[in-house]
């Protein structure tokens, strides 16, 4: 295929990706959108393979690498449990960034050192894609490790962290900038230093970020990989990469900002680990106070629920961990059959990903109409008889409204403490993923039902049937 024909043949791919993004934005066509994206991608791969200059052994390596990677991706995507979806997204995002960095490395190796071989705009593109791709790879792997439990999910902080991170990033950028000085400075070890510094920075900037911020980090790194793929398009002179990469870069950036807005925090505040630092000082002081909680039994809770007019279920990560979504639905159906008005309050950052709870409850066929977003349902809590908090913590912590010293101060929360009674299903008194003490548990109208969420709900179902 000639170069012009190839460029033309990539156009349907670009159209497919744009439509895919559009369709992914509406529940009705979302699945079609994703399938359209996959078709566009398949087309781009076929068109690329039809390039006439690819040599025989090259095809073999492409095929073997593609089959191995494809099998890993397929098995990973099919075998993963619903609860582990977020880390799979982090993982697949990271490998994309890694591929971008490797492409930049070879492109540099092929063209470097000879006068006139590498144009200025191409060298800038190589340096940017190697830098951002490497950061995205290393950062995503740490995000994966944190969510998978391989790396501590608590913020890891140390002295001089912020300054150290900035210095490491500057080392990487400087190494890259030197390469731009001329063809005799196009040295492979300078690029390797840049990549090493970027990898270190990727690890170090995610480590101090706590689990509560992981959705934002994954979204940010997703946008980064998109931008790095776009830069790869500038180095390979391929418009299809420039456009597709940047579509992800810009839409991913917007999504990241939407998520920050939901937590009422700035992006800079998330990235530079301020969360972790405030928290390191504040948490112990709060937990030192001697307070008591009221434990309750499934039978008591069942009676409260069965004779209530209005019940709001507040799901959180604990629900996902316990895989209790089907049981929750059964409980809700049972209550609805008794004439109780049951609704679900969905906090935008409940769980480990935005929309995590929606996906989980959709799996259990909970009707959309019962899922209420935060702004919609907050005014309803004062008229609610029982709020049933299942494995949610930080998103219902009233400290976000009242305690200025709290690291989550200012984050919009679900006002469950305004309802007439609150029942919290929780495994133990350990603080939530963000490691912050929750005053809701000590309120007089709150009672705690300890145990695994699934076991507790099964007991509730039995007790409601008996009530």
């Amino acid at each position, binding site marked *: 295929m000639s170069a012009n024909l190839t460029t033309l043949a990539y156009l349907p791919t670009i159209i497919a990706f*744009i439509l*895919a*993004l559009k369709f992914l934005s*509406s529940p009705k066509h*979302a*699945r079609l959108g*994703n*399938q359209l*994206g996959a078709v566009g*991608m398949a087309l*781009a791969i076929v068109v*690329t*393979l039809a390039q006439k200059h*690819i*040599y025989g052994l*090259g*095809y073999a390596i*492409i095929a073997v*690498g593609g*089959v191995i990677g*494809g099998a890993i*991706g*397929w098995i*990973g*995507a099919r075998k993963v449990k619903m609860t582990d*979806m*977020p880390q*799979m*997204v982090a993982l*697949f*995002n990271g*490998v*994309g960034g890694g*591929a971008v960095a*490797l492409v930049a490395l*070879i492109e540099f*190796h*092929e063209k470097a050192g000879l006068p006139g071989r590498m144009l200025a*705009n191409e060298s800038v593109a190589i340096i940017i894609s190697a830098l951002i791709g490497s950061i995205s790879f290393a950062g995503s792997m740490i995000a994966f490790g944190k969510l998978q439990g391989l790396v501590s999910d608590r913020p890891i902080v140390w002295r001089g962290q912020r300054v150290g991170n900035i210095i490491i990033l500057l080392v990487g950028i400087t190494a890259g900038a030197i390469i731009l000085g001329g063809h005799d400075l196009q040295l492979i070890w300078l690029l390797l230093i840049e990549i090493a510094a970027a990898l270190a920075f990727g690890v170090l900037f995610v480590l101090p970020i706590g689990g509560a911020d992981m959705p934002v980090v994954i*979204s940010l790194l*997703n946008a980064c990989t*998109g931008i790095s*793929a*776009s830069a790869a398009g*500038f180095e*390979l002179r391929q418009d299809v*990469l*420039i456009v597709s990469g*940047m*579509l*992800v870069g*810009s839409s*991913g950036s917007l*999504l990241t900002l939407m998520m920050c807005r939901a937590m009422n925090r700035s992006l800079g505040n998330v990235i530079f680990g301020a969360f972790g630092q405030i928290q390191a000082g504040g948490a112990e002081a709060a937990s030192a106070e001697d307070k008591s909680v009221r434990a309750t039994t499934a039978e008591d809770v069942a009676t409260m629920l069965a004779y209530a007019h209005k019940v709001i279920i507040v799901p959180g990560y604990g629900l996902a961990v316990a895989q209790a979504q089907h049981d929750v639905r059964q409980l809700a159906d049972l209550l609805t059959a008794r004439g109780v008005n049951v609704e679900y309050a969905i906090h*935008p950052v409940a769980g480990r*990903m*935005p*929309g995590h709870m929606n*996906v989980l409850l959709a799996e259990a066929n909970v009707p959309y109409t019962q899922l209420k*977003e935060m702004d919609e349902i907050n005014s309803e809590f004062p008229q609610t008889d029982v709020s049933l908090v299942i494995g949610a913590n930080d998103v219902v912590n009233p400290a976000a409204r009242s305690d200025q010293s709290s690291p989550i101060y200012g984050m919009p929360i679900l006002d469950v403490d305004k309802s007439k009674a609150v029942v919290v299903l929780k495994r133990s008194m350990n603080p939530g993923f963000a490691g912050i003490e929750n005053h809701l548990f000590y309120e007089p109208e709150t009672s705690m039902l300890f145990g695994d969420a699934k076991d507790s709900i099964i007991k509730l179902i039995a007790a409601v049937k008996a009530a």
Partner: protein
Amino acid sequence: MSSNTAVFLAELTVLILAIFLGIEVISKVPTLLHTPLMSGTNAIHGIVIVGAILITGLNDNLLGQIVGFFAMVLASANVVGGFAVTDRMLEMFKGK
């Protein structure tokens, strides 16, 4: 104006348009679809597989073969895993 400059300016134009287009098409996405959207865009940046194929297929030397192989593995895991995981999430919305 050299041909490189002309091509580069066209590339920049396309880049700028893509930035605004990306923001425009997802500006009205409901919270419900944030996770699948993130996952779906994650699959789309797997387009780097085009770059991986090109550098592997066009550089007939040991480094190109070894590094190209790993680039292929990573990029195809991104593509296949990305679309498959998104499809699994969206499967659960069907029929409603």
